[in-house]
């Protein structure tokens, strides 16, 4: 018989990951909250068996990315603009890095987040996103180039 999942324990272990993946994709905390709840509700609905916490974490990240894609698709279909909410950071450099990365394309933002925050290897990100390692390397390098250009442009201005 399937063991009932311990919701509080799962939230304790993975809330941070899911919320921050969502925050890295959408531009305001309210949207991130909706995505967060949707991801954990899907977890209960699907009743999947996971081999380990790492397997569960990878599933949650993947579902969060899918929910973010759905969010962008729905917003596009509804012809709505995304509401940007300013997040207060104590350190101004944190504010800068957060908003520069937020301006990148979704496919770059997700790779940046998984590499720099979750500290996954390129090989692991490739597996997680079901793509080639070379694609991940290219996305990381383009994201870095893009950020550099934007910063230089802002400095010149």
């Amino acid at each position, binding site marked *: 018989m*399937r063991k*009932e*999942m311990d*919701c*509080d324990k799962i*939230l304790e272990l993975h*809330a*941070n990951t899911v*919320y*921050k993946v969502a*925050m*890295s994709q959408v531009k305001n*905390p309210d949207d991130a*909250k909706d995505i*967060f*709840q949707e991801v*954990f*509700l*899907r*977890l*209960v*609905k*699907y*009743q*999947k*068996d996971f081999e380990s916490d790492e*397997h569960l974490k*990878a*599933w949650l990240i*993947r579902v969060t990315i*899918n929910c973010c894609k759905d969010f962008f698709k729905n917003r596009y279909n509804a012809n709505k603009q995304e509401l940007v909410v300013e*997040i207060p*950071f*104590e*350190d101004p*450099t*944190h*504010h*800068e*890095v*957060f908003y*520069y*990365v937020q301006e990148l394309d979704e496919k770059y933002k997700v790779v*940046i*987040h998984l590499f*720099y*925050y979750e*500290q996954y290897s390129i090989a692991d990100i*490739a*597996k*997680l996103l*079901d*793509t*080639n390692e070379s*694609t991940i390397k290219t996305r990381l390098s383009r994201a*870095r180039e893009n*950020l550099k250009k934007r*910063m230089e442009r802002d400095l010149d201005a």
Partner: protein
Amino acid sequence: MLDKYKEAYDEIEVPKELITETSLLMKEEQEKQAEKKKVGFFRRPVIFSLLGGMAAVILAIGILSQGGSSGELIKTELQAGKMVDKVKLENGELNFATHSISDNDLSSDLKSYITKAGSDADVKEFYGEIITIEVPKGFTNSQTKIECLYDGEQLTNVKVVNEYTKGDERIYVTYEKEDEGTLNTNSTIDKQELALRYNKVNEEFVAKYIDEGKLYSIKTENMTQEDFITFLVKFVK
């Protein structure tokens, strides 16, 4: 700059009330699921008696139509939430363990090509017809994407991606002109050779096969192995 990325995100905290609310929602959902199971269990005798009465009719229809349900097609016992590596079918065999589709096969490498969004007119001009794909039962066609690949001025391929959704379940059916002429197949359905792959991390099933010069790809997300096989068998037929 990016060396500060982790520190920046460490400053962001998950709101405590969000965790509390989500925990309550999850528990409510768990109760709903448990309730459903209970109802299912207590109604079983009624369902069985009804099914018993209908069994002969269904059997007769099955024999007459020679169609067969997924239960008859799939000879290996499948379990929800578990992956079975080798599945025997009435008319073939599917291998999910061997990753016969390489990563390169799965992602289109379009480096040397220019891709432009296409239309139904491009599909008709390139293939001479628009291939109609029946919407899987219970699903809706959420979007169709047409991509035209140009090598310089020359239109070299037209890729059509149909996305079907039912709740969180997704099926992507793609077809394009087959260029390579080879595919490392590991499975068969009705003598049609296929390459199958199961991605455990993403819970995705992918099948590829070549038919009449076209490469067909079927990818599913959040679907059980049984539902994937049932769809695939019908689609290939």
